[in-house]
């Protein structure tokens, strides 16, 4: 398998949970070195798709390859998912987070983490449970970007973030994503990530309904937000 071809290759992915069909027959291929927006309404399955790719969800049909790797343990080494901190002791301090990550993930770069934490204005001595929601999101981002992976998955990273913090986070993403890596950001406020995107993938009705280059959409004089909303025919949604 040529490692340099695709960051992500999904074929015929279907997934049920709690007797509900969440994703059906998803096919998606993403090249290396791109920033991809994963767009969909609340509950459309964006998080589930990321969980399946990362390995949090495992009971699926179809195939998932990341950087040419299919088997779960190795595949996990190619992916950095923003939810990978779930289960950390809330009493730990920001500084301790780096130690734990280093112990468990060979590709974690503490030096990068310290720089990112500084850029994002995170106090090394603060306990996780004392961090505001915004700061917790920043910490998640710092941890996610401090790993050297082929595929980064950011699930709603700007949820509840103010404008200035968002700018710092966007800057961090641009600065710390390795050149050949692909970054997938899910968001249901498109304008947050608009100018970073190489392409967008729209999830609706349990599957991928569209995959389009950002420039192609704009060349037609349409904003990505309008493009996304066109799938909902003007319905009101969050």
């Amino acid at each position, binding site marked *: 398998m040529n490692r340099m071809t695709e960051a992500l290759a999904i074929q015929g992915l279907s997934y049920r*949970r*709690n*007797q*509900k069909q*969440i994703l059906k027959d998803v096919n998606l291929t993403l090249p290396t070195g791109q920033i991809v927006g994963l767009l969909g309404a*609340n*509950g*459309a*399955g*964006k*998080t*589930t798709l990321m*969980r399946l790719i*990362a*390995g*949090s*969800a*495992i*009971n699926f049909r179809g195939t998932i390859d990341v950087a040419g790797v299919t088997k*779960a*343990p*190795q595949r*996990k*080494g190619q*992916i950095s*998912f923003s*939810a*990978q*901190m*779930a*289960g*950390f*002791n809330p009493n730990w301090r920001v500084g301790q987070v780096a130690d*734990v990550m280093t*112990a*468990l*993930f*060979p590709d974690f770069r503490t030096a990068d983490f310290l720089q990112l934490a500084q850029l994002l204005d995170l106090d090394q001595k603060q306990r996780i449970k004392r961090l505001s929601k915004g700061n917790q999101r920043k910490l998640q981002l710092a941890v996610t970007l401090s790993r050297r992976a082929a595929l980064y998955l950011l*699930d*709603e990273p700007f*949820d509840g973030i103010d404008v200035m913090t968002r700018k710092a986070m966007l800057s961090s993403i641009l600065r710390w994503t390795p050149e050949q890596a692909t970054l997938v950001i899910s968001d*249901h406020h498109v304008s947050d990530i608009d100018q970073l995107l190489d392409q967008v993938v729209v999830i609706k009705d349990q599957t991928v309904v569209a995959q389009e280059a950002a420039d192609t959409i704009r060349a037609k004089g349409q904003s990505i937000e309008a493009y996304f909303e066109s799938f909902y025919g003007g319905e009101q949604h969050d």
Partner: protein
Amino acid sequence: MTSMSKVFWQMTKERVRQVTQLIEIDLGVIAVLVIMRLLGRISTDDVLGFSTLFGLITVMVGFIAQAQSQEQVWVQNRWRLVPIADWKLYCASTLSNLATSVYLWAVIAAITTVEVLVSGNKGNWSNTGFTMVASVLVLVLVMLLLLWTLISLEHMLITMITDFLPGMQEKWLRCVIIFASILVSLKLVDWFFSGLGWLIKVTGITGASLNSSMTIDGAGLTMHGTVLADLWLSTGVFAAAVLLLGALNCFLLSRWVETKQTPTAV
């Protein structure tokens, strides 16, 4: 790829730290008891009695804490997203609980021993040989492993079932599932021992060939003959159970058990 030893050490570090906090509480209680003794409010026997009791409580609370730590490993992203094979994750966690338990017991036993010696009681050190004590210890450790394995099986079955069935909001339904899966596990264990008994009968591993005469039948284990050999035979049986059920757990873990969903939009 992360190595099993790295995962084991991180798990053990965290669990030992947690258990040490419990030990500190125990020592605190003992300190209070000693002060009360020095003030003449209670007798030495009272001190010994209460502190032994509290030592037992500490061990039990430690056990529950470890069970929780273990459950976390199956259903939290911080463990399941580590680039390591699921069976290695399972082994690391199970061994880590074993190591932590040994640590806890050793410390509590040492504390109790110190108390006994200080109080002036000569204690009843029977003439049990070292081999016997060691054999019993090994058996107890293996039984502990079996207990951890069964608890893991519980957790995994519960997670699998709640993920499979719709709308598991009601707490009572969860209780029913727990109850049912405990029954299922016990039945599995029962079948296992019956099967083993049949196997032993069929292959002719009788007591005579092992310097023991232990029989396994529907009523359980009946021991005759040399106690030591019996001990080791039962240790072997339990160890086999640990390995088999452990393999089952690994299979369930890598095929069915998913992590909890974090509260972001689906």
